[in-house]
């Protein structure tokens, strides 16, 4: 019976490549769903000393194949080693990085073992019912995403695109086993002969291969200014490119031109500096992963395709940006966004408004977005701001990082609290979550992953909960000698009934998204990739109605629920009456209905 998730850990010159850590991080998440272990397979010459490092990054076990023949990569010796490991250990899943080594080795091994292999995956998950690995990969030049499985053959194998998955935080206290696997090599395994190893220095520019492009336009002002772009590109491990205007001015070679008459590029990051963004330029870069544009002119069309646009002066921003990246490279500083009208960033959350929808993102992905005091304070301050902001109608709450919505409260912070401090943190969290519930805005929780303890309590404070099929729910407090104390005992019992609430709290069993839907803990379940789209569509639909009526309906439900029925009816009557008030939307809505036209609630209502 096959079991465990194996990761081929790539090394070059006995140095581990980052893709290995990324795959171990992803494997750990899959292993949790399967209740299996993560096994790192370390192949090379004198590489055994790296095993402990792999354990610190989350491997439960490390298999080491160490032999002089495995120094410089050659297909056959590596294929032999990997095949021997797979045949002996019978893994359930084997992951490789989609690098030029992984994409040479993995197909060779798959054909030898006679199992399936899915190339260049960008997402992996375990199907809750079949327990099969669902492998998502782009095709047709990234125009189409395909979900692939390997039903009957074992192991299930995939190569995974570097830079996509998240490594876990290094933790030296992690324990794991190290095992040396003996593979008998002979001279005949050298089916090719390496005559020479030539390390690459910077060769002829090929901007289409760059993972990151720092691109300059006419507003750079001159050839000298591109020196700064080169510095930035080097710091980011990328290359320099330019718009046609800059190339025509002779500031950079034609081979670095992006656009219709230049090259089409698709880097992970495209940093556009002083590029206005003519349609011919945009055609060459719009499919880049993340586009950041800096331009003085706030009407520059480049802002139409930018994920982040900065209206400002390049000559002031770029040197500071260079210094900041240098500092971050040296010290690993954690960066968060600044405050401004549209984009309020704090230490642990991000808040921004896009197309009139507000987004509050809990942004501690490495701690699975766990709620600590600071995070609660920041959520509270956003709620205070929203309370008096009529321009925002819908707020979407979500977790950063793909693995968790919020995986609970920050236990390390509460560990040593005394009675008074315990009471205080609960009162504070209750107050914040009541604030969220009482916001005049409609609050949608977009739930992507683990939603446990305080996370589930935050989700319940929202009006509507949309869950990814990958999400998991639970109240694990009693495991820690605690009870749900951030509104959980009250809200969960009111939402799903006291019997079900008690079952969830007493057993601490985790619920799948489907179970959560069945008991009414969430209101819809969608595929992971459709989560944000569904949440946005829901927000837009709500915003297209009479928002005044919707707010009154929310108020009537919220305030009436805890009351006795007849008292609730009084609240309803009161809210209904407000629809007929001077500033109510009732007149416009009903007039439009009678006049067979579309109601327009955006204008101030007028009574004839």
């Amino acid at each position, binding site marked *: 019976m096959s079991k465990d998730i194996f990761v081929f850990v790539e090394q070059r010159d006995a140095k581990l490549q980052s893709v290995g850590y990324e795959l171990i991080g992803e494997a750990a998440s899959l292993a949790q769903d399967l209740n299996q272990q993560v096994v790192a397979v370390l192949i090379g010459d004198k590489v055994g000393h790296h095993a402990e490092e792999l354990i610190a990054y989350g491997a439960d076990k490390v298999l080491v194949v160490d032999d002089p023949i495995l120094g410089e990569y050659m297909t056959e010796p590596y294929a032999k080693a990997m095949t021997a490991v797979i045949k002996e250990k019978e893994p359930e899943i084997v992951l490789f990085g989609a690098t030029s080594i992984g994409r040479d080795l993995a197909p060779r091994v798959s054909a030898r073992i006679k199992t399936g292999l899915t190339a260049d995956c960008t997402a992996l998950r375990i199907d809750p019912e079949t327990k099969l690995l669902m492998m998502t990969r782009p095709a047709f030049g990234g125009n189409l995403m395909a979900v692939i499985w390997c039903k009957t053959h074992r192991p299930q194998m995939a190569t995974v695109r570097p830079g996509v998955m998240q490594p876990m935080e290094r933790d030296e206290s992690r324990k794991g086993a190290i095992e040396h696997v003996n593979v008998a090599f002979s001279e005949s395994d050298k089916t*090719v*002969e390496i005559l020479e190893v030539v390390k*690459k220095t910077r060769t002829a520019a090929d901007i289409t291969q760059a993972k990151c492009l720092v691109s300059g336009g006419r507003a750079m002002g001159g050839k000298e200014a591109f020196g700064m772009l080169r510095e930035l590109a080097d710091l980011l491990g990328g290359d320099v490119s330019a718009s046609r205007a800059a190339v025509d001015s002779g500031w950079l070679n034609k081979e670095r031109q992006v656009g219709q008459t230049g090259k089409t590029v698709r880097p992970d990051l495209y940093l556009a500096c002083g590029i206005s963004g003519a349609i011919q330029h945009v055609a060459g870069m719009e499919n880049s992963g993340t586009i950041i544009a800096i331009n003085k002119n706030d009407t520059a069309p480049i802002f139409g395709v930018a*994920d982040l646009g900065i209206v400002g002066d390049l000559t002031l921003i770029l040197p500071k940006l260079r210094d900041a990246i240098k500092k971050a490279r040296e010290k690993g500083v954690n960066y968060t966004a600044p405050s401004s009208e549209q984009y309020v960033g704090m230490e642990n959350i991000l808040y921004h408004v896009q197309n009139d929808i507000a987004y509050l993102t809990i942004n501690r992905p490495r701690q699975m977005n766990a709620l600590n005091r600071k995070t609660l304070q920041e959520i509270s301050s956003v709620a205070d701001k929203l309370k008096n902001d009529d321009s925002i109608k819908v707020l979407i709450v979500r977790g950063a990082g793909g693995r968790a919505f919020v995986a609970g409260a920050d236990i390390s912070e509460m560990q040593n609290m005394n009675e008074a401090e315990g009471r205080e943190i609960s009162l504070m969290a209750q107050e914040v979550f009541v604030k969220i519930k009482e916001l005049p805005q409609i609050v949608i929780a977009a739930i992507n992953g683990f939603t446990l303890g305080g996370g589930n309590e935050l989700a319940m404070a929202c009006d509507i909960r949309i869950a990814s099929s990958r999400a998991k729910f639970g109240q694990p407090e009693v495991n820690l000698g605690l009870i749900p104390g951030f509104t959980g005992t009250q809200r969960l019992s009111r939402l799903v009934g006291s019997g079900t609430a008690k079952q969830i709290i007493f057993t601490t069993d985790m619920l799948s998204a489907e179970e959560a839907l069945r008991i009414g803990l969430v209101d819809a379940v969608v595929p992971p990739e459709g989560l944000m789209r569904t949440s946005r569509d829901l927000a837009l639909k709500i915003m297209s109605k009479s928002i005044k009526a919707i707010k009154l309906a929310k108020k009537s439900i919220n305030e009436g629920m805890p009351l006795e029925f007849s008292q609730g009816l009084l609240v309803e009557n009161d809210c209904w009456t407000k629809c007929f008030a001077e500033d109510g939307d009732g007149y416009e809505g009903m007039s439009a209905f009678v006049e067979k036209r579309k109601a327009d609630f955006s204008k101030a209502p007028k009574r004839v």
Partner: protein
Amino acid sequence: MKIIVCIKQVPDTNEVEIDPVTNTLIRTGIPVIINPDDKSGIEAALDLRDKVPGSTVTVVSMGPPQAEMALREALSMGCDDAILISGRQFGGSDTLATSTIISAALKKIGYDLIITGRQAIDGDTAQVGPQIAEHLGIPQVSYVEEITPEDGALIVMRQYEDRYHKIRVKLPCLLTAIQDLAQPRYMTVGGIVDTEQKDIQILDFDALSDFLDPSAIGLKGSPTNVVRSYTKEPKSQGAILKGLTPDEAVDAIMARLHEVHLI
């Protein structure tokens, strides 16, 4: 030296568009081309033929009958003969099943050197070449960007992200070509006229049955299956920040770089 070049006819993905209303791939009317990496492979093979007297270049493709067009183009570039592997039993094959079928055909045809493109632009898997080499039990060198013939062997440059390997590999072997390997020549008028006279040999299931296990090919013989496919979410407009101090602007950029794991 008997050189085989494996090519694939692919839709030109630069021309692929998404229907803005249904958000699905528009599949009709997309031009088909010889996969670019494969075309470099053809050019490299023709170049080798010039350098090693007595060599021939056979171009092979697996696909529907329409793939004949790609083979005709290869003949017009100067390849000696062309073989189409085609049959309804082959439909729905994943990379493992495809490589099983192509390697069966290659066993029948015979070879000294096999060149495939590194990867096709429609599937981007880069798997079929190495899998063919494994089925045939011959060495492979992938990501090749330079080939020099030697007696009974080849000296090739193999590209990695951070280095090259200069490798000697004995024949028979399989190489996968990247676009930098060679700049493909154009079809010549003479070539196009000559091509009209040439027959394209078709290998169907019956022709390969001695080399093929029917349970290892087609949809049923494929370990992997597509469960579903979807188009990506259309890109929505991002945040535009005005009136920041340079320090705030830098913080905003750094936060985003951090979010996408670039710092």
